[in-house]
């Protein structure tokens, strides 16, 4: 590389940072530190790299990370009862955000007011679209639960599954399956493969026979299912050959397939979209709240959400971020084809009806557990 080339390359790298620093308005009456709650692992690393580190470099804010998102709802409720909120910003999944909002544990925010407009000029509400489905939620990414399968199963005789219903096809695709030990998603998939249309799904589930129909469909493969409770189990079982196909989060499959190069492939058919995003705990003191809002304005803008996809294969929640998704930071792989939001992968997809699940979770869960125990 010539010296001139090198210079212009540096300039290209340095320029956006400089521009960013100028864009960032000063934070008035703000705390110097933040306690952010997330999931740990690769996902938290992507957040640190994509927005916490740049923000800390510009503002000198100290970040403390707490890997408690798994129990965030229970812990926040306990903190609220004790009257001592130690968290500033909490990363939760969609259904949890609904519960926190319902319980008054999360602060209501007007995203049009506190977040940056999209790079394409859209308002935050337009830009986030369906993902901003309640008054407390500030979405970051879209992830999906989908299926991986082994590509070298002898019994399959060279066939590979091309749609979700291969899951229920023990004749052509024999072998053990790995499914989550929860009714959610499983009963929706069972109905879809039992001839129910996507639009009728929750109407059917609301009838007394709906759940039975779903469980009857799952009964046909019950003896071949190994159930999982942690997202890492399916990738491990696929890699060990313990199962021939199984459901898990698309990011986990990405690392099995692309990073670890296992003989595994994935199926995007009827992937179930879920969102992950921020909520602000209710009752923060003013200076901490100011810091959180200042950070959020930066961390959820179009570029930052697109940056996150360099580190993990989850899609940005903003529509305006999609065109900016580039390559993986270490592997150099083009990330767009691995995004759940990629149009190619989105031909058939589902979004869980969070309201329906909030209403029916307890009963369906009890019936599912009773069914499992039979």
């Amino acid at each position, binding site marked *: 590389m010539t010296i001139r080339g090198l210079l212009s390359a540096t300039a290209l790298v340095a320029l956006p940072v400089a521009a960013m620093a100028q864009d960032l308005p000063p934070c008035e009456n703000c705390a110097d530190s933040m306690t952010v709650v997330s999931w740990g692992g690769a996902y938290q690393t992507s957040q640190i790299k994509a927005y916490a580190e740049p923000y800390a470099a510009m503002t000198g804010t100290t970040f403390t990370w707490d890997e408690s998102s*798994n*129990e965030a*709802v*229970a812990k926040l*409720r306990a903190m609220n009862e004790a009257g001592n909120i130690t968290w500033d910003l909490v990363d939760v999944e969609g259904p949890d955000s609904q*519960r926190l*909002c*319902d*319980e*008054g544990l999360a602060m209501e925010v007007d995203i049009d007011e506190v977040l940056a407009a999209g790079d394409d000029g859209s308002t935050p509400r337009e830009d986030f679209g369906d993902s901003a489905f309640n008054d407390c939620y500030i979405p970051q990414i879209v992830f999906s639960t989908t299926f991986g399968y082994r590509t070298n199963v002898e019994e399959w005789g060279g066939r590979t599954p091309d749609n979700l219903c291969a899951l229920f096809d023990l004749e052509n695709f024999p072998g*053990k399956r790995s499914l989550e*030990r929860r009714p959610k998603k499983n009963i929706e998939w069972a109905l879809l493969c039992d001839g129910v249309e996507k639009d009728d799904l929750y109407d059917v589930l609301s009838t007394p026979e709906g759940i039975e129909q779903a469980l009857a469909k799952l009964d046909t493969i019950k003896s071949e299912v*190994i*159930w999982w*409770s*942690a997202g890492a189990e399916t990738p491990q*079982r696929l890699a*060990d*050959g*313990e199962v021939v196909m199984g459901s898990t989060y698309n990011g986990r499959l990405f690392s099995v397939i692309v990073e670890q190069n296992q003989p595994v492939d994935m199926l995007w058919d009827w992937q179930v979209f879920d969102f992950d995003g921020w909520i602000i705990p209710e009752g923060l003191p003013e200076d901490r709240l100011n810091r959180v809002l200042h950070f959020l304005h930066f961390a959820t803008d179009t570029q930052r959400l697109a940056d996150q996809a360099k580190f993990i294969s989850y899609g940005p929640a903003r529509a305006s971020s999609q065109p900016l998704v580039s390559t993986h930071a270490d592997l150099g792989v083009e990330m767009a084809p691995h995004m759940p939001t990629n149009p190619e992968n989105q031909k058939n997809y589902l979004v869980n009806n969070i*309201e*329906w699940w*909030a*209403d*029916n*979770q*307890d*009963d369906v*869960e*009890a*019936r599912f*557990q*009773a*069914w*499992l*125990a039979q």
Partner: protein
Amino acid sequence: MTEATRTGQMLAADGTPLKRSLQRALRAQKLRALMLIAPLLLFIMVTFVAPIADMLFRSVENQIVSDTLPRSAQAIRDWDHNSGEPPSEDVLAAFTIDMIAAVERKQHTRLGTRLNYEQNGLSSLFRKTGRGVGDIGETYRDQFAALDPAWTDPGTWIALFADPSWQADHDAWEAARTAARSAGRSFAEPVPPFRLKDGMAGVLPETADAYLDFARAVQGGRNGDPAARAPWPPVYLALYRDLTAVGVGRIATLDEAAQALLDPAHYAVRGFERADLAALYAGIDRAWSQPDVWATIQTFSARYTPGYFLTAVDLKQTPDGITSQPADQKIYIMLFERTLVMSLTIMGACVLLGYPIAFLLANLPMRSSNLLLILVLLPFWTSLLVRTSAWKVLLQQQGVINDILVWIGIVDNAGRLILINNQTGTIIAMTHILLPFMILPLYSVMKTIPPSYVRAAKSLGATNWTAFWRVYFPQSVPGIGAGCILVFILAIGYYITPELVGGTSGTFISNRIAYHISSSLNWGLAAALGTILLGVVLALYWTYDRLVGIDKVNLG
């Protein structure tokens, strides 16, 4: 004969009865002992006993319903849920005021979540109703406004309902705020707490009550000032109801300004178009026109409920009494049974495996027994998760054990054993994890058994077996007792290992408790399940004490 023996009382040297003097001397000692243990006692009380007591209390506590819907809980008491009709207009009016106040305080969704545990669909029903309840009473607000525009002015309401001393306080507060703002200072002082004018509750009871709730709810929010906001439409509903019920004579007891406002309204309400509350609620959601939802509210409006405990034993509290859960939702009794049976199995497996090892440890020469002890302790010091994961690698169908069995030819490739994700997996992994808790007490008891006893038995002609069974074994029983109690009590509350290797048939009741604590947030049910589990353990401990005697237990 001394004085003391005659009266039957022993006296100390100073003439006080000996008993009392001894007590006094001992009291000082006891006090000192208490002082010494006080830090620990206090620590345990604060960090252990109090949280557990609080958690157990949640299993019966149900104040959220009567706290959020105080008027409705009162009004619905006499409603007959078997009538097939939703409750009367009075109940609906009370419910409207309760709901709007709950919405302002953002408590209605929390209540919906609570009641959803009892009846599916109430969570979204309350959320939905929260959005619609603010419109109930709008008809009346509009009609009052058409009669006299002053009715939509916050000042009118303040003049009518606020205590004059509060008004004075409020004026002072407002002046201070204006002064601060014009000086460019920030002003964070809250509005003085609202006080109701005396006598209003006698004339317009529902309205006064509703307005008071309005003022308090508004003050609870950020920068809430009741004097800056006209009341919610439901308050106008209350006003309409009061004015149709109250006599002219009552209004005449009020001051002139109030009379001037209320007299024409009192006359006019007779001609007002009526709002059909039942229809309005049915318009928000059809569920409100069914008796079911109301019956659930009625049943669970008590401050304490046996509901969680009933759910925990597969029963259900309904308006018509206690019934059994549908067969396809019964899980808890089965889980309790499974937990007990599997814990006993694990305990038995630990005795069978642990006894010979402890025997070896206690009877081998020091050097080799030390090495053996390290082998026992090494896994004991290893992280629980590491050990559990190691079992996965060993036990799974494509795992080490199955591979070896296939390689030797004991099982063929298609018939690989299922050793994990079922009860077998849980029993194997937990037996391994809990084994040290059996071996260590056994070892420490066996260490104290003098070898000379067995030798004596043998010298008197006993066979090896008789000497062991009649002489050695009975002396090691306290160790077995201690080990069994330790292992059983630890096993019954185990959670992480069954979760990871138990699949569907090898999970315990504690996995359900964890689910209700962290996922479903039904802490009441989790507390009830926990209380039952604690009760079962205490009952078993008591039985053990009765049968074996706890003083026979020896931890070494």
